[in-house]
């Protein structure tokens, strides 16, 4: 199990960690039973992600993955964010050990879930108005 410097750095100094007060969207993914659970919080202004935060219960790779994901989301439009892939995340971390290649999927799913949460709410609001 050899982590890249990038992974270790994000693990030791995670960016944007912690709960967000009044997020515009929240997504959860993973399963505590598998040892991994990630929550992604988003603030969205004018279709653009102005702030992303995370909370993760999981291994070093899971934490680093969430951390880098929040960085990748910053400033992206919803459409851009929707296109974020596992391999974007792996690349941003300078790679992950083979045993840990499932982590980006958890993060990606949390993001997608947050975004659909937002779109659902937004769509509803739109209709109501």
């Amino acid at each position, binding site marked *: *199990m050899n982590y890249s410097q990038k992974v*270790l750095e994000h*693990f*030791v100094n*995670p960016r944007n*960690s*912690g709960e967000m007060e009044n997020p515009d969207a929240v997504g*959860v993914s993973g399963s*505590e*039973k*598998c*040892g*991994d*659970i*990630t*929550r992604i919080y988003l603030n969205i202004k004018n279709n653009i992600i102005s702030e992303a935060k*995370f*909370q*993760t*219960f*999981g*291994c*070093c790779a*899971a*934490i680093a993955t969430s951390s880098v994901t929040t960085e990748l989301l910053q400033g992206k439009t919803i459409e851009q964010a929707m296109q974020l892939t596992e391999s974007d995340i792996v690349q941003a971390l300078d790679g992950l050990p083979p*045993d840990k290649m499932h982590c980006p999927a958890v993060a990606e799913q949390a993001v997608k879930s947050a975004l659909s949460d937002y779109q659902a709410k937004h769509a509803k609001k739109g209709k109501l108005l």
Partner: protein
Amino acid sequence: MQTHSVYADYSATTPVSQEVLQAMLPYFTESFGNASSIYQIGRKNEAAILNARANIAQCLGADPKEIYFTSGGSESDNWAIKGAVDALKMQRKRHIITTAFEHHAVLNTCQFLENHGFEVTYLPVSSNGMVNPQDVEKAIRSDTAIVSVMCVNNEIGTIQPISQIGEICHEHSVLFHTDAVQAIGNIEIDVKQQNIDMLSISGHKFHAPKGIGVLYVRNGINISNLIHGGGQEMGKRAGTENTAGIVGISKALEIAVSHIAEKNERLTPFRNRLIEGLLQIKGTRLNGDRIQRVCNNVNISIEGIEGESLILLLDMQGIQASSGSACSAGSLEPSHVLTAIGLERESAHSSLRLTFGENFNETDLQYILKVVPECVEKLRNISPLWKGGQK
């Protein structure tokens, strides 16, 4: 940044001690002859092996002819169980009893045998990590070939009532094997007094090198070979003798057993203070009995954090520890030992095992008690599962 370092993973492996290494060195280069050869440098090695066998026998209360050298604890466990049931198969003994929290060397051997027509009973263990001898007795059937119960659990350090279990086995004429890999140097072993028929040992757990182990097999018990070939080990285990390893494990065992009392006296107070100190952290629990445990093992579950990330943070602070057994590191399965004592999968993922060495001292203790809470705090701060004690 790092101010101190403590290796606290002695149950995973230990360094070869200088004394042991010095005893081994001549057998790599000068005295390298094949112990089965008849010329002098061969006979010299044969003599060194005879010596080691006698010395190990004495350390365990056994006879030299009952000591067989293997490549480690896993081979010893495999050989004991597979060898015994193979030798007994003509008697239609197709039942094996073991426990739910054995090492995988025993568990996976049993599972393999299940695929080969054997039936296995996995006894439960209590919530404090103890096997009940009565459960063993109840599980014994007329076709039971062997009972295998470990001396000391490798994750939670609980000491099992081996001697009673052995007595029960003998009353029912069933073979009794025990995995003593984690017992050596921590508790006294006397195979005769403790009614043990077969016993597994692994050198690297007590300052001998990796790749050498012992299986004790009581006189009169016939087990099939696991590794067939040349006539080494009295015809029971083939392979050119690993003389350096054999000399090393003999020396290391001698040192280990002669320091048991001293080690217990020294480490027990540290263990107790470590347990007390760590349980000050909110949302923690001790895994395994507080009293019936070896003097160098502390295992706690810490709510809201995952084991691997704690281990890595601790490593960055100079503390080497483990979460679940070293063997299952890298797997996502929660520890089968912790689930066996009733932990939910979540808490089983949140364990920290500290197993310390003979030289553990006050500074080490203070350092651990300072660093662990800090690391836990750091991880809880980013955990979605931790709400300050009230989930």
